[in-house]
C-alpha cells in the first residue's frame, strides 16, 4: 500500500487543521479505544484509566507528537519511526491487532470534531496513513 500524492495532501490538510491539538485528539482516541475495546486496557494495567487521567493525557501527547512527526515525513515513515518501531517490537510488544483499533478510534475522533469536512477522500487517506504507520510500528516484530 502506497500513499499517493493526493493522500499526502489530504493527510497534511487534516493535520494542519488539527494544529496544536494532536495531543488532545490522541488522548480522546485512547479514551475511545479503552471504552470501545476493553481488551486494549491490558497494556495499561499500571495506569489510572479513569476519565481525565493525567497518565492517559501524557500518553496521548506522546502519540500526538509521534503522529505529527510522521505527517512531516511521509516519504520516509520507516526512517522517522525507526526508534518507535524498535520500542514496540522489543519492549512494548503490543499485539498488532490493537493498532487497527486505535487507528479506527483516531478516525472517529477526527470525524466527531471535523464533521462533514472529514470528507470521504480525507477519511480514506487518513485510514491509509494510519495503516502505514501501524505497519511500520510492527515491522520489526519478527
Amino acid at each position, binding site marked *: 500500500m502506497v500513499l499517493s500524492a493526493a493522500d499526502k495532501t489530504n493527510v497534511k490538510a487534516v493535520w494542519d487543521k488539527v494544529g496544536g491539538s494532536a495531543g488532545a485528539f490522541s488522548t480522546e482516541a485512547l479514551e475511545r479505544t479503552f471504552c470501545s475495546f476493553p481488551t486494549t486496557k491490558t497494556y495499561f494495567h499500571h495506569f489510572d484509566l479513569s476519565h481525565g487521567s493525567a497518565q492517559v493525557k501524557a500518553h496521548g501527547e506522546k502519540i500526538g507528537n509521534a503522529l505529527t512527526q510522521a505527517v512531516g515525513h511521509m516519504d520516509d515513515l520507516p526512517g522517522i519511526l525507526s526508534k518507535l518501531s524498535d520500542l514496540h517490537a522489543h519492549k512494548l510488544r503490543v499485539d498488532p491487532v490493537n493498532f487497527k483499533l486505535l487507528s479506527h478510534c483516531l*478516525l472517529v475522533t477526527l470525524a466527531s470534531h471535523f464533521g*462533514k469536512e*472529514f470528507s470521504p477522500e480525507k477519511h480514506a487517506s487518513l*485510514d491509509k496513513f494510519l495503516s502505514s504507520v501501524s505497519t511500520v510500528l510492527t515491522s520489526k516484530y519478527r
Partner: protein
Amino acid sequence: MVHFTAEEKAAITSVWGKVNVEETGGEALGRLLVVYPWTQRFFDSFGNLSSASAILGNPKVKAHGKKVLTSLGEAVKNLDNLKVTFSKLSELHCDKLHVDPENFRLLGNVLVVVLAIHFGKEFTPEVHAAWQKLVTGVASALAHKYH
C-alpha cells in the same frame, strides 16, 4: 451472545431516533466503497464507481445503502435477539451473495465514523462504545449461519 446494558440500549436508541436512514445508509455504503475500494467487487452492476463523488452520488449506492441501514433498524428493535433477527439474511449473504463477513466489520466501522460526523460531540466515548458493540453484534449475527 452479546448483552446490552440499559445504558447502552438507551444510547443506541437515542442516536437511532435522530438518524436519517436514507442519507446515512447511502453515506456509509458510499464511504465503504471509497475507503476500502476492494469492496466494490460486489457491486459490478452499480454503474459509475470511478471516483468518490461518483460513488457518493450514485443512485444505486444510495438505494442499497438505505436498504442496508433499514435492516440495521431491525437490529435496534431486537437488541436481545440479533442472531435470530439476522438468521435469514445470514444465509442469504453466505449462500447467494458470497460476502466475506470481514466486510460486515468494515461497514460497521465506517457507519460508526459517519455517526461521529453527524453527531459530533454528542457521540461521546460511551455512546461510541455502545454502537461499536452493536455493529460487532450485527456483524457476528450476519456471519453466524455461514458454513
